[in-house]
Structure formats: C-alpha cells, structure tokens
C-alpha cells in the first residue's frame, strides 16, 4: 500500500489537487467559501508588489500617452505648417492681385486723362546691354502700336516706341543717350531737351546759363515734339552746374519713372492733343 502510494505520489497528489479544486469550486459555487486564509495571505504578499508594478504600468502608460500626444502634436504641427505655407502662398497671390489691381486701376484712371486710343501694355523684357536703355512691351502692330508712339505711366514718361513687330514693340527709354524729349521746367517754363548720357545719367540739355533752374524743379513734356502729350512728368532736377565757359548749364535729372520697377505702361499717340491734366 505504502509502496503504491510512494510510487504514485505525484499523480496521486495531482489528483488530490484536482479533487480539492473541485471541492473548492463546489463550495464557492454554493457560496460556502467565506474565509480564505490562503487568499488573504497571497493578497497580502501581492498587494505592495502589485501597487509598485501598477505604478510602473501607469508610468509606461503615461509615457506612451505623452509620446502619442507628442506624435500627435508633431503631426498637427506638420499639418499646420503646411497650412501656413499654403495660406502664405494664397496671401501672396492676393497681395499680388491687389497690387496689380491697384496698379491697373491707377493706369485706368490715368488713361482717362490721356487722348483716346491709349493701349495698355506690359513690359516683358529689359535691355540686354547697358549701352542701350530700352525695353520690350507685349503689344505690337496688331494691337495698334506704331513706331514713334509715346510710352508713359501715371508717374510720367517712359520712352518712345522705336521698333514694332506684330506682337511686341521696342521702347527706347528716356534714359538712353539717343533719346530726346522736349520739356518745360514747370516753375519757369524754360525749355530744354531731356536725354540720356553714358557718363552722367539723364540730363537736361540746351538750357541757357541765364535761365533760373534750381534743384528740385519738375520737368514736364512740352508737347512740341509731336510724340508726347503735353504736361506729362519727365523728371526732377537733382543737380545744376553752371560752368565758367559755355552757353548752357549742366543739369542732371532724376527720371520720374524707374523703368526696372515698372510693369505696366500705356502707349499713346500725341496726335489727338495734349494730356488733359
């Protein structure tokens, strides 16, 4: 008997455990299992460990949540960054449209003061060399642009059309040494020719030494050359030099229109009379 028990002690003890667990199950199912000293002991052992472990778990969960939040922030940040970029592009477009709109409106207002038949054009290219001061506009003979027409902006004179193709035209700027615009000094009504020069920029030529020309005097077109309507701003006197010898004064002029900064121009013909203003 003992030998059998000794030989099969392991399966017998396992079977005993099985039976014990069934007994416990039945007692628990009937609600008879009120006191559990083993359970209480186990819980007593487990409690501090579980608290510590749960603390670690909570820390990990917090860490993971914080990480997720950070990742969320990163994604949100990226999204907002892209949105800002898009808005910036859109804003730029609106600003550009607004600027163009204002410019065109100004041009339109100005056009109403010019003789009928003024053609709106855009400058599409500047001079390829510094020896010649010219630019190209996007309107040509098809649009009614003819050689010799004046090119102006609301700020003043730009130049004169010197060559025309069906779709483009070349404009000789008033700052070119080959240009010559008949002007009046607004204050004194003295006459002269504004032209470009290689060494001194834009100058007012052929003004007698006796004429009273001062720095800051405004120069306007006289309308006598048959190209530019009368009364258009050409530039401002920035330097007056009366040399000891010679008939004329040396007068340096700041053009009213800075062509590199200009986008839209009006091509007009002085045939129909002077500018209304």
């Amino acid at each position, binding site marked *: 008997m003992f030998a059998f028990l000794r030989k099969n002690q*392991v399966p017998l003890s396992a079977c005993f455990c099985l039976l014990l667990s069934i007994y416990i199950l039945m007692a*628990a199912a009937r609600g008879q299992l009120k006191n559990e000293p083993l359970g209480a002991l186990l*819980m007593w052992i*487990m409690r501090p460990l579980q608290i510590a472990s749960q603390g670690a778990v909570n820390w990990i969960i917090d860490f993971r949540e914080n990480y997720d939040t950070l990742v969320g922030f990163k994604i949100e940040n990226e999204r907002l960054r892209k949105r800002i970029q898009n808005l910036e592009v859109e804003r730029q477009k609106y600003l550009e449209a607004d600027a163009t709109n204002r410019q065109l409106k100004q041009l339109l207002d100005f056009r109403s003061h010019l003789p009928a038949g003024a053609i709106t054009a855009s400058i599409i290219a500047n001079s390829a060399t510094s020896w010649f001061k010219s630019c190209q506009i996007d309107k040509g003979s098809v649009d009614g642009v003819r050689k010799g027409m004046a090119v102006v902006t609301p700020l003043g004179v730009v130049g004169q059309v010197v060559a025309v193709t069906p779709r483009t035209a070349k404009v000789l700027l008033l700052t070119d040494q080959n240009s010559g615009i008949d002007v009046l000094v607004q204050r004194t009504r003295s006459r002269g020719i504004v032209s470009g020069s290689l060494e001194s920029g834009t100058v007012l030529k052929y003004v007698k030494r006796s004429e009273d020309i001062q720095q800051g005097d405004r120069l306007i077109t006289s309308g006598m050359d048959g190209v530019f309507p009368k009364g258009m701003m050409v530039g401002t006197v920035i330097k007056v030099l009366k040399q000891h010898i010679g008939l004329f004064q040396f007068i340096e002029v700041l053009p009213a229109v800075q062509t590199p900064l200009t986008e839209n121009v009006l091509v007009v013909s002085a045939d129909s009379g002077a500018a209304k203003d």
Partner: protein
Amino acid sequence: MRLFLLFFLVGIFVLLLQTTLLHLLPGGPIAPDLTLVLCVYLGLYHPTVGAALGSFLLGYSIDIVSSRVIGVNAFAMSLVFLSVYFSSRAIWLQNPMVSSLVVLLAALVKGAALVLVSAIFVSVEGFWIGAAWYIIKEALLAAVLAPMVFALLRRGENFVERFRSVAP
C-alpha cells in the same frame, strides 16, 4: 528548499507580470499565460509532489486575483500538470523545440478545462461561444514564449545550483 523558493518567487513574479505589465503588450485582451508555461515546466522537469501542489497553488492564486469563482484555474492547472506529467512519462519531451508543442497542447487542455468547469459551475449562458478562437490565440502565444521562458527558468535553476555548490 532553494528551488522551492526560486519557483515561489518566479510564480509571484509571473502572476504580477500577468496582472499588470503584460496587459500593455499589443495583443488586445489576450496576455501571454506565463503561469501555464511555468506549470508545464514544473510538470516536465520537476515532476514532484511539491510541483503538483505548486501548480495547484498557481491556479488558485490566479483564481484569487482574477476569477469570478474560486477553483476554476486551480482545477485547470492541476489538470495541465497531470496531463504533462503523464505525457512526459510516455513520450520524450525534453527537447526545447518540443516544449512549444507541449505548451500549445497544455494551453488547449487548460482552455478546454476552463470552458467545461465554467459551463458547469459558473453557468454563464453562451460562455463557450468565441472561446475556441480565444483559446487558440492564447495557446499560440504561450507556445511562442515557451522556449524563452524555459531557458530563463533553466538559467535560474543553474544559478541556484551553483550558489548551492559554492555556499559552505
């Protein structure tokens, strides 16, 4: 005695892991059943009365910390131990690769025992619906982890053995 202490501590640790940290793993509601792996290990490598009682206590501990009715897991674990004990006597199951298979089968036995006992004693309507898939997933997870847990347990045992041989 030292081995008893080792398995006692491992049991507590495994129980602690299973009730806390392992729920953080991305396995949904299924956490790896390390207590089952420990029970199989005891059945395979320490088929003693103490191991049988240890398996029972493992199940009982699970019941205390998580079961609705005390005794369900105690029964399942005791059954697992007994199954492994008899299997290991009939077939050679010491190979580490086979340990996965043993744990897989043991998990299936445990799952089936839980469903059966719960159906009888807990009488929850339709408890077994969906249990099959749950049992299979849990068994697979335990089987995957088994070689690693076995290796760790063996290392622990070796450490204890070495400590015993060095100690005066």
